[in-house]
């Protein structure tokens, strides 16, 4: 936010209120900030913008827990969690750049409008230098656009749409989470192995950017292994009773149902599919199968018995045995009494990555931070070796293929990792057709 610039004085003069605006700047001590919300005191404020109501509220609540844990660790509290296993050793537990980390929270309501309003007030009122969160790609894209305009960094939370780092990518936005294309690339070989090449898939798809791009990705990946696609039906995000969408699947001739749903949506559509007896069905002499491309423990828990044996992919799972994951599960579990979800994991990583980038850049200036995140290679955050690709601000790492566990030993033990798909198998060029059509643009510091 800068001083007012005048390009066409004549017209401005006609408006009385703007006239008042003209008189003002001469009185003003123009702000000396080099970039939006430069922290001048002893603290720095981060904005955590997560859904607390709506279809993704469970994920949002878990994200908030992880954010609070991350802040605690950054400020030197707790056991330090993944700060100890992180390959970069810049973070000392004394806040970021010596400033104590404070945070504000907001409710996105899983609605773009509300999310932007909430992020705007964080930037304008609470002077947040970084906004993070979002459990819906629609929201993430809307808020990412706002952060680009306002000149703050956006560290995307749980957003899986190709568009977030594809068509709608922004220079100020960064995503640690994986995406629809990667899910497709990781899942297809496993599906081929389990269900064979002669299958017909019926897609139910959440009707917004995430659903569209994931469906496209899965369809392309499964068609490449010989599957046919019977139909793709779009369901509004606000749907809660999926019976009228599931009923037509019964006799459609398809033998696989792909649920491109997440959170509460997925719980309800899967429950409806199971209620209609789809899993017990046989079509063309084969067992009817259900696939949930994007899986999380919270959803698996919500759907209960219904998830047993169902395949999907996930960004991270608490049962991983590397040092980073173990440290994170330990400190999260100690604090809250249950293991973290993948949503919690990705936002914890994002917060640490932001803090680390600020330390390495030596500034909170978004452009400095963007520069030190671009092409950054790291390890020890639970996903193995990872890279923030400079070309589209997407993290590249291994992808997990998981399955609903048949014999869970506890209420948290609902998923098992079937395969760790190596990074090379899910990688794609920056200008891949599914990601084309957008530009990063230039980093905006708001100056």
């Amino acid at each position: 936010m800068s001083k007012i610039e005048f390009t066409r004085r004549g017209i401005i003069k006609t408006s009385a209120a703007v006239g008042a605006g003209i008189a003002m700047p001469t009185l003003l001590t123009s702000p000396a900030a080099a970039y939006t919300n430069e922290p001048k005191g002893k603290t720095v404020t981060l904005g955590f913008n997560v859904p607390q109501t709506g279809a993704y509220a469970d994920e949002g609540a878990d994200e908030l827990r992880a954010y609070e844990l991350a802040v605690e660790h950054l400020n030197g509290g707790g056991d330090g969690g993944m700060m100890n296993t992180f390959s970069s050793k810049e973070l000392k537990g004394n806040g970021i750049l010596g400033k104590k980390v404070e945070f504000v929270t907001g409710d996105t309501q899983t609605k773009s409008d509300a999310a932007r309003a909430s992020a705007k007030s964080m930037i304008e009122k609470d002077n947040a230098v970084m906004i993070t969160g979002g459990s819906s790609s629609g929201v993430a894209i809307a808020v990412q656009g706002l952060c680009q305009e306002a000149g703050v960094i956006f560290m995307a939370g749980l957003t899986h749409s190709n568009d977030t780092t594809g068509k709608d990518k922004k220079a100020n936005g960064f995503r640690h989470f994986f995406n629809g294309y990667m899910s497709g690339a990781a899942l297809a070989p496993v599906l081929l192995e389990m269900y064979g090449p002669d299958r017909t898939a019926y897609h139910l798809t959440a009707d917004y950017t995430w659903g569209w791009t994931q469906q496209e990705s899965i369809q392309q990946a499964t068609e490449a292994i010989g599957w046919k696609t019977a139909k793709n039906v779009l369901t509004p995000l606000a749907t809660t009773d999926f019976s009228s969408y599931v009923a037509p699947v019964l006799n459609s001739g398809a033998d696989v149902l792909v649920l491109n749903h997440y959170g509460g949506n997925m719980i309800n559509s899967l429950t409806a599919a199971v209620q209609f007896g789809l899993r017990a069905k046989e079509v063309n002499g084969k067992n009817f199968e259900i696939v949930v491309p994007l899986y999380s423990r919270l959803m698996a828990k919500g759907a209960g018995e219904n998830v047993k044996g169902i395949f999907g992919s996930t960004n991270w799972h608490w049962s991983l045995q590397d040092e980073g994951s173990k440290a994170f599960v330990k400190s999260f579990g100690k604090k809250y009494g249950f293991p973290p979800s993948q949503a919690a994991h990705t936002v914890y990583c994002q917060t640490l990555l932001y803090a680390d980038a600020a330390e390495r850049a030596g500034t909170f200036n978004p452009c400095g931070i963007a520069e030190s995140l671009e092409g950054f290679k790291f390890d020890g955050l639970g996903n193995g070796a990872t890279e923030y690709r400079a070309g589209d601000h997407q993290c590249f790492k291994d992808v997990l293929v998981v399955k609903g566990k048949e014999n869970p030993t506890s209420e948290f033990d609902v998923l098992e990792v079937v395969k760790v798909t190596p990074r090379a198998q899910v990688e794609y060029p920056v200008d891949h057709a599914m990601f084309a059509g957008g530009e990063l643009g230039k980093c905006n510091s708001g100056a």
Partner: protein
Amino acid sequence: MDAILLQVLNGLDKGSAYALIALGLTLIFGTLGVVNFAHGALFMIGAFCAVTLQKILNISTISLDPTKTDFLGDPLKIKTPLVETWFGEIAGQAIIDWTVPLAVLFSIPIMLVIGYVMERGLIRHFYKRPHADQILVTFGLAIVAGELVKANFGATEIQVPAPDLLAGVTDLGVYLGFDVGRVAYPTWRITFFCFSLAVIGSIFAFLQFTTFGMVVRAGMADRETVGLLGINIDRKFTIMFGIAAAVAGVAGVMYTPIKPPSYELGMQFLVISFVVVVVGGMGSLAGAVLAGFMLGILESFASMNEVKSFFEMLYLPSIDQIIIYLVAIIVLLVRPRGLLGKAGVMED
């Protein structure tokens, strides 16, 4: 053919919910002349009676099992619900399994009391005020009810499963000569449909065949005359309000396995239930039931792929999203009194 049958079934169970809510709504309007925007909230409160009972039944004692470890390596905590301790494992599990049917019994007294208090404490003071004020105050009440539930139960949907026995599918098609598995429909949804028919039937029987019902019907027709006969019609109407609340409540309970409840449930069903009442005819009980089932089936048909692609040719994809409102607008314009409404009732 089997596809159509499936959609009819789907429409019937949607329609049951619409009909049950609309029935109570129109009952209140017919007896008390009050437009109750908080009726959806009563449905929601009913659903949360089931959630509450589920919580109560799952109150557990925690014991440690040192032979197993949890995810942090500590001894595994094992929860044993108190009902299992009291009634033995098998009986206890059966009680928990049958939460929803039990919740119907649990909710009836609660809803009657809530209805009674609501009428005596608030609605009563609005009989003489304009309809707009009634709408506004009950709208405020609906917000308050939703927020109270949110504060106590959180903002997320809560799963309440149907009993195992009724959780599977029933192959209705076999009885009608279809191949096995062509028309298989979830048993709970069929149960819900039968349940609503029973409730609707008993309400009608109650109004038709009891003295109480007769007085209420007379009061609906001409309140003043009934009052002049020395009958305390206000008291009867208060009871009817309680009954309407109970109908909405049990509908909410039985609907929980179909649609997991959240605090927004009331607002979600509010608009649709008003549409049903208006299409059926304000104050007409039979109209509300008829319109409920009709709109439910219509909505299901509109979501059929064949119907959808027909409308897509007319550049209207996802017609199922708006069909009900279109129908409501047309009915209100063409036949303002609704399908079965009496001429002259609120017809201006």
